[in-house]
């Protein structure tokens, strides 16, 4: 069924009209996703800059660049901004918002006004964070008690800001789940869903179920600081370890909120750039759910030396091993997808392939930490810092960058400079490894985390790591400039430059406001590459 008015509006991209008011009050998921993208990217760069300051301090053993207190504030801000303002909300809210309706053949999410509300709640959270900078906390992003109760720095504002952000996360997750359940186009059955959607669903479940727990945890911390309730104060019968249990009950699933969307991205990029179906579709789809469910039962692996019982330690070490299995399955399936493919190494594919390489390191080093006897010397050392950055940067951020480059033509209607993109990728890849690989060795040598100054025997590895951070910073800078330059003056993008079969590539670049001229009827999955006829297995 065609409609004259719709045909005209199909030629107008979602960027029109350009008035500020129309953007402020928009309910278009593509605009909301873009607003999230700009905000979270800004926070990413700010928190990254803070990290460069920290690494600069760590060039020398002494606290000679900033005072120890300032260093402690810096790592608290770096962690809090990166975790709560960039990575947990970021990939899901930016890419998820833009892609989910397009990929499932819908015109928007289930609750568009709520979607806008989620973004505004996120902004309120960021304003509270800015207020918190007046007397910034020095507790680390984990806010462990009793120190977070006793410190004279302002803990309440920053935790309240994070609390507010939690609402945004919950409502976004809710929106996505209902959208995926109810708004799929005809023929888009569950076994034809793109894997990014499967991963968005699993992520949304985690956001929905885990975030309230950090909400109550932070409320309890605020209550302890303001009302002196003594929940976490042994002198009043309270238990500081209770805070750790509450905190990690959320924060472990949270790390899967961080990485599962990246898994989804990789599952989309690799088939397109190999021109082959994804290997093991069901395994990858279901493994996201397996990871999400098991992730609720491993939290005490952050607490093996906190004073928990040996039985508890055993149970959680065992469960941690279990959560590694579905993750490993994904990696094998991605590599198998490449077999006999027709592989083209444009920048999105470079990010996707290097994701596999780096995330494997991150995941394997997680196994070290899940192994009880090995965790004892490695806990709270730079080994953990290296592990987490391999999974979060090598994993999520590389996935995120890959997604930015892959869907860039669709989102912005332009092409960026591919050669510069490859150069930036190379610098980021090399810089990242030079920064963080030495940190595994620092950790094994015994260098503790959150140290503003350190004994001189650790200096050489710290120097190497800092030089790496400069290369990494340069690479990210070049990438950012390249992507922005493309938006301003890049070549107009074709509708489907990479010949993807996925629904979002069957609409103009950028898409019009209503996404589809007519809601499509889906007859096959999106990974039908190389399929000659219906009789082929």
């Amino acid at each position, binding site marked *: 069924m065609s409609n004259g008015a719709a045909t005209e509006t199909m030629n107008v991209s979602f960027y029109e009209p350009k008035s500020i008011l129309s953007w402020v009050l928009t309910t278009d998921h593509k605009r909301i996703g873009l607003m999230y993208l700009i905000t979270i990217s800004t926070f990413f760069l700010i928190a990254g800059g803070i990290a460069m300051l920290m690494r600069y301090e760590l060039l020398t053993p002494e606290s000679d660049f900033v005072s120890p207190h300032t260093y402690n504030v810096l790592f608290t801000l770096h962690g809090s901004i990166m975790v709560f303002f960039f990575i947990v909300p970021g990939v899901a809210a930016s890419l998820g918002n833009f892609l989910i309706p397009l990929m499932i053949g819908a015109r928007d999410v289930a609750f568009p006004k*709520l979607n806008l509300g989620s973004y505004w709640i996120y902004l309120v959270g960021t304003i509270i964070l800015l207020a918190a900078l007046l007397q910034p906390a020095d507790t680390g992003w984990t806010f462990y008690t009793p120190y977070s109760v006793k410190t004279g720095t302002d803990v309440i504002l920053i935790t309240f800001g994070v609390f507010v952000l939690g609402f945004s996360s919950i409502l976004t997750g*809710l929106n996505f789940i209902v959208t995926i359940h109810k708004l799929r186009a005809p023929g888009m059955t569950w076994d034809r869903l793109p894997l990014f959607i499967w991963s968005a669903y699993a992520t949304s479940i985690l956001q929905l179920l885990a975030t309230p727990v950090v909400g*109550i945890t932070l*409320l*309890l911390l605020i209550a302890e600081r303001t*009302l002196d309730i003594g929940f976490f104060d042994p002198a009043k019968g*309270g*238990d500081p370890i*209770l805070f750790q249990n509450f905190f990690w009950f959320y924060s472990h699933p949270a790390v899967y909120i961080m990485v599962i969307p990246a898994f989804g991205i990789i599952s989309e990029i690799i088939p397109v750039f190999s021109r082959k179906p994804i290997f093991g579709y069901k395994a990858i789809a279901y493994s996201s759910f397996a990871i999400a469910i098991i992730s609720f039962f491993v939290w005490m692996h952050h607490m093996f030396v906190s004073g928990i019982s040996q039985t508890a330690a055993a149970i959680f070490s065992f469960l941690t091993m279990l959560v590694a299995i579905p993750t490993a399955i994904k990696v094998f399936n991605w590599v198998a997808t490449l077999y006999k493919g027709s592989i083209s190494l444009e920048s999105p594919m470079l990010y996707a392939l290097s994701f596999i390489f780096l995330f494997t390191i991150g995941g394997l080093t997680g196994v070290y930490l899940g192994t009880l006897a090995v965790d004892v010397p490695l806990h709270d050392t730079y080994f953990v810092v290296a592990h987490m950055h391999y999974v979060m940067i090598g994993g999520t951020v590389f996935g995120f960058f890959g997604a930015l480059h892959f869907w860039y033509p669709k989102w912005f209607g332009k092409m960026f400079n591919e050669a510069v993109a490859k150069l930036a990728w190379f610098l980021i890849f090399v810089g990242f490894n030079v920064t963080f690989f030495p940190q595994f060795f620092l950790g094994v040598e015994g260098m503790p985390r959150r140290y503003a100054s350190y004994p001189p025997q650790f200096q050489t590895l710290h120097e190497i790591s800092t030089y790496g951070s400069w290369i990494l910073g340069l690479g990210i800078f070049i990438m950012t400039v390249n992507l922005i330059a493309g938006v301003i003056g890049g070549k107009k993008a074709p509708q489907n430059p990479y010949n993807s079969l996925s629904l979002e590539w069957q609409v103009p670049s950028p898409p019009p406001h209503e996404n589809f001229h007519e809601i499509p009827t889906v007859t096959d999955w999106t990974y039908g590459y190389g399929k000659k006829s219906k009789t082929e297995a």
Partner: protein
Amino acid sequence: MDSTVASHAEEHHELDPVVEYESSKLGMWLFLGTEILLFGGLFAAYAIYRARYPEMFAEQHRELDVWFGTINTFILLFSSFTMAMAVWSIQKGKQTRTVIFMLITIICGLAFGINKYFEYAEDFHKHLYPQTSIFYALYYLMTGLHMIHVFVGLTILSVITYLTHKGKFNENYNTPIEVGGLYWHLVDVIWIYLFPLLYLIA
């Protein structure tokens, strides 16, 4: 489980009414799930500390006035009943009756709040504060957080009542009333668990 047919190209791409109804209900149930987890954290803290200090809990809770709590329980239960009646009424198209039932529900909610005000006043008069003990910290946090949800619920119900009065809902379309009612029932259910744990422990 598959999607129903989505609407054709339209300026404002409104959803098919059935899809919208099902989406709203699913959305509200998911939201209620998050609320259960939010309170769940407090219930978990309660369980842990009660297991650790059973005598302290038993001794401390005796200072609470069971009558305040019992009256509030009846008020909320009754209000859930009137809310259910409101939903039933609008499904029959009876707008005025719906408004009356919803107003009664709101009045009950306000009564709950006023009762709580007097109860807290008496607690403070008896020098029972959040700092008094972990039991009282939990008491104030749990009933306080619950009270906030009551107020949020009252706000939602007030808006819906006004819209009903303006004729926005009928037997064909009354999703907000039903979904608002779900939220109110949750507020009631949480109280049903809070009441015995705080007021009735042996």
